[in-house]
């Protein structure tokens, strides 16, 4: 058992994989809590797919691919925020259009290259073993910036999420924080991109936070629990993939989804209880 746990880490790429997955779990859990509770799962997916355009353009031009992904994701986040404010089409339709436009641009650029491009596919499906030292450093920096922002403005982010009109009346720059949240999601996507891949990266945002929300009721608790769940799923998935010789990111995501399913089943009865347990009758007697 000990060997099963320790064996993989005699390889440097596995140690690096573990580290980057821990960073992904922390950022994913914290940002994912907002994604789950503000119904931004589709935005997360759109941001993930939009990065293909940046990845492809940077790759073709020999530029830094992660930087390309970051630029594409942030630009898309700002675009989503803009349509959210002055949309003449519905919000999810606008996101859907941005999503396919950016993704198509990515495929178009790739299609011009006739040679096989394995590096690009590692971005689409994730390649945990291809995470370089500089990828790890980039993830650490972006992750630290994300956490610092959330820690600095946790009151404002909560107020804007809970009641934006009241937040505006007491002087919170609501528009700024609505955009900021989308940019945070974009950054979280880029942090996880190389390890998890465009197709599955959204899972690291929504699955652990959704599971945590089944058992915890306060935003801080949900964040901590989501980070713990993300990290556990990552480690278990990483070992499964190492020993069973299967792809890492789907292994991690399946473990996280299994944890969600088990938690959902285990809390099925409890979900009813909190409401029923509130003594409405004693408190008001009338307005239950």
């Amino acid at each position, binding site marked *: 058992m000990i060997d099963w746990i320790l064996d993989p880490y005699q390889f440097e790429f596995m140690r690096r994989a573990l580290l980057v997955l821990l960073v992904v779990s922390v950022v994913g859990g914290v940002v994912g*809590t907002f994604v789950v*509770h*503000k119904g931004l799962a589709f935005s997360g997916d759109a941001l993930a797919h939009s990065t293909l355009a940046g990845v492809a353009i940077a790759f073709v031009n020999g530029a830094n691919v992660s930087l390309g992904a970051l630029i594409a994701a942030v630009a898309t986040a700002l675009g989503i925020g803009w349509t959210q404010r002055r949309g003449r089409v519905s919000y999810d339709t606008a996101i859907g259009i941005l999503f396919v436009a950016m993704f198509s641009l990515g495929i178009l650029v790739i299609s011009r290259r006739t040679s096989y491009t394995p590096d690009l596919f590692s971005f689409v499906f994730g390649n945990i073993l291809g995470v370089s030292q500089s990828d790890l450093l980039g993830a650490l920096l972006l992750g630290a910036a994300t956490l610092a922002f959330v*820690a*600095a*403005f946790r*009151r*404002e982010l*909560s*107020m804007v*999420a*809970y*009641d934006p*009109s*009241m*937040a*505006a*009346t*007491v*002087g*919170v*720059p609501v528009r700024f924080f609505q955009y900021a949240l989308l940019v945070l999601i974009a950054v979280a996507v880029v942090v996880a991109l190389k390890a998890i891949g465009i197709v599955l990266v959204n899972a690291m945002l929504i699955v652990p936070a959704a599971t945590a*929300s089944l058992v*915890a*009721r*306060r*935003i801080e*608790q*949900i964040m901590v629990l989501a980070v713990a769940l993300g990290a556990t799923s990552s480690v278990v998935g990483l070992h499964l993939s190492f020993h069973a010789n299967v792809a890492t990111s789907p292994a991690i995501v399946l473990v996280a989804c299994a944890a969600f399913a088990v938690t959902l089943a285990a809390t099925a009865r409890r979900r009813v209880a*909190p*409401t029923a347990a*509130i003594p*409405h009758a004693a*408190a*008001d*007697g*009338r*307005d*239950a």
Partner: protein
Amino acid sequence: MTSAPPSPSAAESAPTVLGDHELAREPLPPGHEHGELALEVRDLWAGYPGQPPAIEAVDLRVPLGEIVGLVGPNGAGKSTLFKSILGLVEPIRGQVLAFGKPVREARALIAYMPQLEDVDWNFPVSVTDVVLMGCYQRLRPFGGWSRANREAAAEAIERVGLSRFASRQVGELSGGQRRRVLMARSIARGSRLLLLDEPFAGLDAAVQHDLLEILDALVQDGRSVLLATHDLSCVASCSDDVVCLNRRVIASGSPAAVLTEDVLSRTFDRHLLQVASFAPQFASPHPPAQVAAYDEHIAGE
């Protein structure tokens, strides 16, 4: 009680001679020196881009320590009026003064209680978390809530009778309790003017009564309230003044003067059929205090 000083008779109490500089009254709290108004709206026009104005030429006053009811049908512009008072909707023209100052400078003195639907009740915050939001003053990175904030929040929660639910997630509360949470948030803010948007919607009479008692106590403390509702019986019983709004001010004045069949049928267009049946005391032939000019075409819309 021999040690007690003799009560001054008229002869003994020599008139205090004050120097000129002392003649001025004690410094009054903000607002008092501006005609005793908590809120003054002058000729306010507001609306949304690409649409006709939702409110036109609205004049409205909330005197200090009074409850003013704002009555009108859905779509009359009550929420738009609130949002333009608060600066959430940019007015097309007109002026809003709170305690004699532009609203931007009087933010700390104003609390806004939105409609229940405007708030995300599923967001994972507790009653205490929400009430603390009322204490927010300004953007401060890494800022937290001070001990004074926490005490103010606990006191406000106590005041609305939700202490037992302080750590409960807000989504687990009933409609009446949610309103009380929002009211506690307004109290914790220490505001002198409360803007309440439909505070009684969807509540039964007994819960309305509880909320009114809380509101009454707040007014006793010197707070002023502007309260939007389409519940006429409630406004008739709790307001000092009533403003009837249907894009324009149809009438304003005391409830008895304003809540007449004539004014109400013009305010609610054809929605109101039987005034006398719900408030017979106000169906008297009193003329409305100030019936504003009324455009026939608005009634027709």
